[in-house]
C-alpha cells in the first residue's frame, strides 16, 4: 500500500523512460541532498489528462542493521535443483511474477465491500502520507530500489512492468486499462473508433472497447468431447473469464472443435493466450490466438 501514491496512473515505468517517446518531454528525476540528511526528489510525469505534473518529495533513508539467521543464509547458497538446476540466481519470470498492489490495512469493524479508505480523497492522501514508508520502487519490498531482487528480472518485462506501474489506488479498475493501454497497435475498425471523437484523452477512450472486445481468444483443435466447463477451468486460471462459448454440433451435441473465451481483462487474455497455446487437452494440442473481429 505504500507504493500507492507513488504509482500515479498513467505514468510510465521508470525503466521504460528512455525507450518511450515521452522521454524527450520528461526530464529524469532530480535528486538533491539536504543538510538534515534527507533527500528531495523532483519528478515530472504525465497525469491522466496528459498534463505534465511536477512532484516534489522529501525522503528520509534509514539503514536498519540486523543479523541474518545463519541457517537461512546457508540455504540461500544452496544450488538449485530439478528444473531450476543451473539457472542463475533470482526469480525466473516464467514461475514468478508480481501481482497488483493490494491495500491491506486492518480496521476495527471491517465490513466487506466497504472501501477501506474512509476519508475523502484529499484527507486520505494526506493520511497515507503520514504513515508512508516508501520502499523499493519496483516491487515495493522493504529495501532500496537498487537492491531489489526483481531489478533485473522484472523491469525489462515490458508489459508486466508497464502494467505494474500503471496500477493506481483502485487496482481493480485500472488493471484492464493498463493492460490494454499499450495495445495501440491493434487495428480497430473505424466504426468502432468512436472514442476518437470524444473530448480529451481520445486514445484512452479507444481503450475501453479494447477491454470489452479484444480480450477474446479463439481456441481451436478442441476435443469433440470437451465441455464448456473444462475450458473454463483451464482458462480461468489466467484471469477473470466473462464468457466461454464452445461451438457444438446441433444434432450430436459434440464440440465442433473451436471455442471462444472472453476475459474481463486483455492482459489476462494475452497471458492466457501465451500459456494455454500448445496445452495438451484430451489428446489434442490446443491452439489459442486472439479472436479476429467479426465485422
Amino acid at each position: 500500500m505504500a507504493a500507492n501514491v507513488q504509482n500515479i496512473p498513467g505514468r510510465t515505468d521508470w525503466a521504460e523512460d528512455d525507450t518511450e517517446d515521452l522521454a524527450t518531454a520528461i526530464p529524469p528525476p532530480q535528486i538533491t541532498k539536504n543538510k538534515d540528511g534527507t533527500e528531495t526528489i523532483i519528478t515530472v510525469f504525465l497525469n491522466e489528462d496528459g498534463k505534465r505534473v511536477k512532484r516534489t518529495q522529501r525522503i528520509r533513508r534509514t539503514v536498519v542493521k540486523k543479523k541474518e539467521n545463519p541457517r537461512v543464509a546457508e540455504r540461500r547458497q544452496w544450488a538449485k535443483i530439478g528444473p531450476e538446476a543451473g539457472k542463475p540466481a533470482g526469480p525466473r519470470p516464467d514461475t514468478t511474477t508480481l501481482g497488483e498492489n493490494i491495500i491491506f490495512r486492518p480496521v476495527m469493524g471491517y465490513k466487506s465491500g466497504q472501501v477501506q479508505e474512509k476519508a475523502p480523497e484529499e484527507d486520505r492522501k494526506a493520511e497515507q502520507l503520514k504513515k508512508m514508508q516508501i520502499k523499493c520502487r519496483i516491487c515495493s519490498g522493504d529495501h532500496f530500489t537498487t537492491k531489489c531482487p526483481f531489478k533485473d528480472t522484472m523491469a525489462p518485462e515490458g508489459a508486466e512492468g508497464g502494467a505494474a506501474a500503471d496500477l493506481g489506488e483502485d487496482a481493480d479498475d485500472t488493471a484492464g486499462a493498463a493492460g490494454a493501454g499499450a495495445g495501440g497497435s491493434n487495428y480497430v475498425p473505424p466504426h468502432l473508433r468512436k472514442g476518437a471523437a470524444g473530448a480529451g484523452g481520445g486514445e484512452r477512450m479507444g481503450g475501453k472497447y479494447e477491454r470489452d472486445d479484444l480480450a477474446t481468444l479463439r481456441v481451436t483443435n478442441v476435443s469433440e468431447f470437451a465441455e464448456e466447463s473444462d475450458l473454463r477451468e483451464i482458462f480461468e486460471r489466467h484471469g477473470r473469464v466473462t464468457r466461454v462459448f464452445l461451438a457444438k454440433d446441433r444434432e450430436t451435441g459434440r464440440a465442433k472443435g473451436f471455442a471462444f473465451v472472453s476475459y474481463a481483462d486483455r492482459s489476462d487474455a494475452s497471458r492466457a493466450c501465451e500459456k494455454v497455446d500448445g496445452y495438451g487437452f484430451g489428446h489434442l494440442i490446443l491452439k489459442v490466438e486472439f479472436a479476429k473481429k467479426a465485422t
Partner: protein
Amino acid sequence: MRPILLQGHERALTQVKFSKEGDLLFSVSKDHVVCAWYSANGERFGTYKGHQGALWTVDVDPTTTLLATGGADNTLRLWEIKTGKELKRWEFNTSIRRAEFSEDGRQLLGVTEKRQGQLSNIFVYDIVPDVTADQSTDPTLHITVELPRVTVAGFSALSRYIITGHENGSVAQWDAKTGELIKEEFPHEDGMSVTDLQWSSDRTYFITASKDKTAKLIDSETLEVLKTYVADTPLNSAAITPEPTNYVILGGGQAAMDVTTTSARQGKFEARFYHKIFEEEIGRVRGHFGPLNYVAVSPDGKCYCSGGEDGYVRVHHFDPPYFDFRFEVERERERGLQM
C-alpha cells in the same frame, strides 16, 4: 503490499507450508509436483518429482532437512530438501490425506483415506533427522480409526496427543503413545467436514476450519472451543499468526461449480483476517480467481501465503500498518504493561 505470484503448478493447490524460519515455502498440488520456493522474492529453489498422483499434503521438519509428502498414489515419501533426493517411501492401500512432523521432528504421522472396505488409518513413524540414516519401514504406532473419515491430523505440544478432524465436523484426541481414543468433541455443524487444522506456535491450541463457514480455536488439552470465527463462505483453511500478533487468517470460497456459472467475482476469493481474541473480522485480501485451498503464515509472522484452486500461490509480505494495528483495549493493556 505487493503479492508475489508463484506459478509452479498446473492444477489446484492442496497445501502450502513454510519452513520453520519462514525462508522457504513448499507447495503441493493436484498436478503431482512438489515445489520449493524462497519466500522473500518468490524464486523457485526446485521441485521434487516422483509422485504418480495428485498430492494432498506436505510438511517440513524443524531443521529444514527433510520433507514429507503424500498423495493419491498411495505413498508417503521423505525427501532430502537440499538435493531433491527421495530418501524413503512408505506404501499404503489408499491415498495419504495428511502428513505432519511432530514439533521435535522425530516423529512423522500419515493419515490414509477411508475407502470402501478400508477405514481411515493413522501411521506414526520414528524419524532420524539425518539424510544418511535408514528410516524405519514399520510404524511405531498404527491406529485404525473407527470414526467417520479423518480429514486432518497432527501432533500436539510435546507430542502428547494426536488430534484428528473428521468428515462429520468432529474433532478427536488420541494418546500419541498408545493410540487410545481419549476424547471426541463436536465443535462444528454436524456433517460439515473439518477441512484444516493448524497449530499455534507452541502447539497448545489449534484452529480448525470447516465447511460450516466457521473456524474454531480449540484447546489441545481439553478440546474446549476457545473462540469462533464466523465467515460467509465455506472454509478450506485457517491459520494462526504467531505472537505478538493476534490474528487468524481464514481461506475458502464457494466451490467452483456454483460460482463460475453466474459470475466470477474476483474479490469473492479472499483471505479473511480476524482478530484472534475478539473474533471480529478486521480485513480481507483479494486476488485469487478460485477458492483458497490453503493459507499458511510464516513462523516469523512477517508474511503469509495462500494456495488457490486457480493454481496460484500468492505470497504476501505484510506492510507496517498490519503490525501497528491494535484495538484500543490492546493499547490500553500495552500501556499498562509498560508502566
